[in-house]
């Protein structure tokens, strides 16, 4: 459960609030994962298992490696030069760092929402349709149907239904981020990675994103990196606390925020450092 138990894979067992949550199958399994940028080590022997159809929050001070770990799940770290990765990441029992893995298939099934909303400089409709066309949907009727469904699911439909064909860059920050979520869920991934999706938004927009995440939980497994303690407490089922590239504690969210097992975690969640 703590860093001491590193050979074992950290997995919250305590059925503090949600009994069903712990019964859910494991979807991501990380074994002794270390990551180096050149000589600098960013992740140190991380082992963690993430359960299906839950919201798992990664918290920790800046530079603790939480975003880096998140980006290991869809291999976005591959884009950076000089990165070396040791250890294993399994999704649905398959090692995603094995040579035969096709990056495109992986990223199709592991979606991502970034810290800063990044819609393409295309229309709202085309932003989502782009993702769909990539993966073989070309019939206009089908496209329209999925675009509408995705926008509804992202709680954006009512705001944009009259201007689907105007530029996505004309939307507000919060709307842009919900569009990015709609774009990610349009291709029906199993897992959605969210890298501080609300950190650039105002409180109102943030609240809408959080609502949305709770909605999406039914259909998707969500891993979210956040700086915001309250946000983690509000929306996540499980929380993992990282510090200096290590996994310090991983447990049910209520447990982490009420009775953390490690002193460091307590100091951080109560705001004594970080």
């Amino acid at each position, binding site marked *: 459960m703590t860093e001491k138990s590193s050979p074992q894979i950290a997995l919250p067992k305590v059925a503090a609030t949600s009994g069903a949550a712990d019964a859910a199958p494991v979807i991501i399994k990380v074994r002794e994962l270390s990551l180096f940028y050149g000589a600098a080590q960013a992740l140190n022997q991380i082992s963690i298992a993430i359960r299906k159809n839950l919201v798992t929050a990664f918290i920790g001070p800046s530079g603790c490696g939480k975003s880096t770990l998140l980006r290991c799940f869809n291999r*976005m770290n591959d*884009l950076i*030069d000089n990165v070396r990765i040791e250890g294993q990441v399994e999704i649905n029992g398959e090692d995603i760092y094995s040579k035969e893995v096709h990056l495109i298939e992986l990223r199709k099934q592991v979606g991502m929402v970034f810290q800063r909303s*990044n819609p393409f*400089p295309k229309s709202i409709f085309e932003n989502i349709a*782009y993702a769909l066309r990539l993966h073989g949907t070309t019939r206009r009727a089908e496209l329209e149907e999925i675009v509408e469904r995705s926008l509804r699911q992202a709680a954006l439909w009512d705001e944009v239904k009259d201007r689907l064909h105007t530029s996505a860059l004309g939307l507000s920050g919060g709307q842009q981020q919900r569009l990015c979520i709609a774009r990610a869920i349009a291709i029906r991934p199993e897992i959605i990675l969210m890298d501080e999706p609300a950190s650039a938004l105002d409180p109102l927009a943030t609240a809408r994103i959080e609502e949305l995440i709770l909605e999406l939980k039914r259909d998707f497994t969500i891993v979210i990196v956040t700086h915001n303690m309250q946000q983690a407490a509000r929306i996540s089922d499980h929380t993992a606390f990282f510090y200096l590239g290590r996994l310090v504690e991983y447990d049910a969210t209520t447990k982490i925020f009420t009775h953390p097992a490690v002193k460091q975690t307590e100091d951080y969640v109560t705001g004594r450092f970080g």
Partner: protein
Amino acid sequence: MGLKRGHQAHPIEWLVERGIFLVATTAILMVFLIFVFVAREALPVFLGQTNSSLVQEVLPVEKMNTLTPVELQKYLGLSAKQYRELDRESIRALMEVKIEGATEASHDKDAGLNTTAWRYLIGPHQWTGYERPAYIWQPVSQIHKYNIVPLLIGSLKVTLVALLFSVPLALGAAIYVSQLASTRAREWLKPSIELLAGIPSVVLGFFALLVLATLLQKLFGYQGRLNALVAGVALGLAVIPVVFSIAEDALSSVPRSYTQAALALGSSRWQTAWQIVLPAALPGVFAAVVLGFGRAMGETMVVLMASGNASIVSGSIFDSTRTITATIAAELAETVFGGHHYRVLFMLGTLLFIITFVSNLAAGQVITHLKSRMEGKR
């Protein structure tokens, strides 16, 4: 405490700053001066004041005693300075030459035409000895034929060949270097391609003349060694670094967030490059092509050396071709200062300046327009 001592306390600094401001206006001044002074020499052509007609009102030699110096100078078509340098004997000789020329030329029915009038500069004309009305640039012998259509067609033809050859190569390389190549490969590929810009155009012309012409002739098996194809391909080599540089800059300045979003959705590298990065960089790519066009239209030495320089109206790229730039370069040195040939060549220069100026401006306009559209302001 002298807290209020501002610029008043530093008159020298104030002066220097004024000076900096003045120097900074040099670029504006130069563009203005280029236009004014190239157009100034061509102004008589634009105003219809030049006259190349050989049948002019001729004055008897005795008239030189009754005319004022200003009238005489104008009659002989001399500048004030040239006139001052002449003694009476030379003036008498000049007047005789003029009479002689007029009587000789009047045998040809075209001799009385002012070939610098606009209808002859741009329209076809039925010249003596030709079967049908034709566009002719032939500023030699007695009757100077100044039709600019063959030159315009020549310039456009060579430019088209150059762009067809260079744009696909340069854009392909720009996409490869900015999107697909590894960081290490990019570090040496980019400067290597830009090194092509360091080869002087006279060397490209030389290369076209000695190597390329032979090679292409063997490849296509046409008759004349030098033609629009040879010049166009060599010109393309000068255009490649221009298009590559600007397009590569535009492609690599597309925000990384677009690329990341596309990759995270599962697009492959080429799909990202083709469907996301290229459209986003389109204004820059467009500008690259337009500037490439300007460069091709304005390049002189390559076409002067490799195009064959025959001013014929033809659509074939295997025919010898004469461009606007090559015409100016080849003919200006042989013209009479201030004469109609001299002025028509400056008119071509003005035309060239306007073409490149407008295409630069148009590129700028399109870029601003596309940018504002992409930023959601539409």
